[in-house]
């Protein structure tokens, strides 16, 4: 206890850095704009799902109909995509805008030299940028999820299942990891490029490439080497399908989509194609949480690995960097 008190009183430099970063983010206009955007998205998708929740839950054909709170996150009538799909687009924007000028703005402003002349480790600066943004996002998403469940409870009076709590929590973790990837990427670019505008533009370019062009490129490439379809056996088709899917999964947004849909829709059993033999005898019931998690585990690991690679590269570039402006 005494240790705790002294450590609170004598802040580690790292703690001070994280605190300063968070304060800087919260006071910035950029964050307010992003917050508004996120709240608007959340409010819009919640409004639509709440107005359609009655039909969604009373649909007896749907094995997921009993999960009211998961339905709240995924139901839509087609006017607006559900929250997790919207976040697929919004997440990169959040991550990029929180990180694109992390290091280069400090270097341009001359604050980098000043901070580096203090008795702190060089990587602490990098880590504090990353941790502070992730911390803020986690709090934000947790708050949104609680708002949703709280609102749902008030409106419907239905008790939340422990399974739903777990699924929603892991959905939040997944969102944070996904945004963390884009944050890591944009911090990397902010070290690589001296101008904030260049790094922002490059990050947005990468994001656009993965969301718009990547699928086109993949389908073109695959068409070029797949033989004419009438000559294919069923197992060949399956095989090629698997290849296409795996190539698509190199894009982080694909990983995120796979993982979130599986977590939020418990009846999803497989992310690839399923043959009739496999389907025969399967009862259309929701999977337990552990099984869903097993399905998405490769996706989650992939996202974490990509984030790690970005961070390791940033670290490598930054440690050897001349810091003068």
């Amino acid at each position, binding site marked *: 206890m005494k240790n705790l008190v002294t450590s609170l009183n004598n802040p580690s430099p790292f703690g001070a850095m994280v605190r300063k970063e968070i304060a800087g983010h919260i006071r910035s206009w950029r964050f307010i704009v992003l917050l508004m955007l996120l709240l608007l998205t959340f409010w819009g998708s919640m409004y639509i799902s709440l107005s359609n929740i009655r039909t969604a839950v009373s649909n007896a054909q749907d094995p997921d109909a009993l999960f009211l709170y998961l339905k709240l996150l995924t139901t839509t009538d087609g006017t607006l995509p559900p929250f997790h799909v919207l976040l697929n687009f919004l997440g990169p924007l959040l991550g990029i805008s929180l990180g694109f000028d992390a290091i280069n703005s400090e270097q341009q402003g001359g604050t980098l*030299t*000043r901070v580096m*002349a203090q*008795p702190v480790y060089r990587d602490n600066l990098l880590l504090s940028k990353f941790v502070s943004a992730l911390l803020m996002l986690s709090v934000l998403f947790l708050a949104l999820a609680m708002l949703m469940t709280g609102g749902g409870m008030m409106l419907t009076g239905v008790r939340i299942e422990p399974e739903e709590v777990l699924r929603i929590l892991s959905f939040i973790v997944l969102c944070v990891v996904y945004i963390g990837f884009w944050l890591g990427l944009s911090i990397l670019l902010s070290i690589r490029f001296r101008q904030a505008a260049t790094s922002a533009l490059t990050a947005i370019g990468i994001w656009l490439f993965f969301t718009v062009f990547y699928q086109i490129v993949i389908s073109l490439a695959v068409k070029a080497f797949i033989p004419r379809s009438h000559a294919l056996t069923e197992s060949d088709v399956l095989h090629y399908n698997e290849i296409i899917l795996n190539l698509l999964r190199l894009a982080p947004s694909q990983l995120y989509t796979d993982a979130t849909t599986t977590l939020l829709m418990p009846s999803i059993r497989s992310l690839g194609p399923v043959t009739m033999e496999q389907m025969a005898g399967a009862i259309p019931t929701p999977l337990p949480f552990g099984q869903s998690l097993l399905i998405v585990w490769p996706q989650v690991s992939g996202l974490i690995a990509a984030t790690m690679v970005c961070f390791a590269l940033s670290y490598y570039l930054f440690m050897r960097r001349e810091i003068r402006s």
Partner: protein
Amino acid sequence: MDNAIIELRGLTKCYGSLKAVDDLTLTINKGEIFGLLGPNGAGKTTTILMMLGLSEPTAGTARVCGYNATNTPIAVKRKVGYMPDSLGFYDNMTALENLVYIGELNGIPRSEVRERAVEMMDMVGLRNEDLHKKTSAYSRGMKQRLGLADVLIKQPDVIILDEPTLGIDPSGVRDFLGLIRQLSRQKGITVLLSSHHLHQVQQVCDRVGIFVKGKLLVEGSLDTLSKNLFTERYYEVQVTVRQAITTPWKHEPDLLQLPAVQKLAVDGPTIDITCTRDTTPDIVRFFVERGYDVTGVHRKEYGLDEIYQTYFENNLTEAATP
């Protein structure tokens, strides 16, 4: 040399084929104010960054406060305050917040840090109403003072100021350097300041080193420097008379007959006389006896400007004839 606080031995830094700092050996003693003089691009900032362990030397060692700056930069940075030439503050924070942040990075307990920051700002002469202003509203001179507070808050043994007088007006420079000198004397802080403004450095430094193209050409106190340099033509007397003198001047041979007078140059009403000894009284008497109305006598002493100039000239001629 047991009170040496900064010891550089054979320090070398190369950027590709360019030698930014070339085999620099320098010792600075505790409590001293040392001026590192040199033109832009001489390698001053690089040297300073190596002293702080922010840049890795290609060869040689830098020991500061007894620690090797390359291997244990954190220990060095605890003892050394560094003010970079391009001072930057976080513009979205107030001056006090900026200072408190730096204090926290130095591990000052949170209960004390605010109080100490206010004390430092008072010490460097920032008024109370400036504390809560955003630093974006600060003038260059105020930023410089805040930068000094920033350096002092960790209670350093050594402060390193990189071009501290850049971009402030002359009276601001005088105040600022006065402040540095006073602080150094009161607290026994060693000061290393780099500059290309000779006169300013002249005012405060105990010792200077002239640094050109990565090499320390000469170091020592101003007196020794000028004595070494101007052994032959140490004194130059300029006499101004009321009437312009027409050349050829009839008294010229007589004046050259005076002991120690080497040569003279006449330019309208002023005569420049170079001599090996200080013979100003004889020269004045000479003029008075011949009925000139002497309006001014100026005995030139060589200051840093001339020293600097001479070293640069030497250096340039060397460079021109490889």
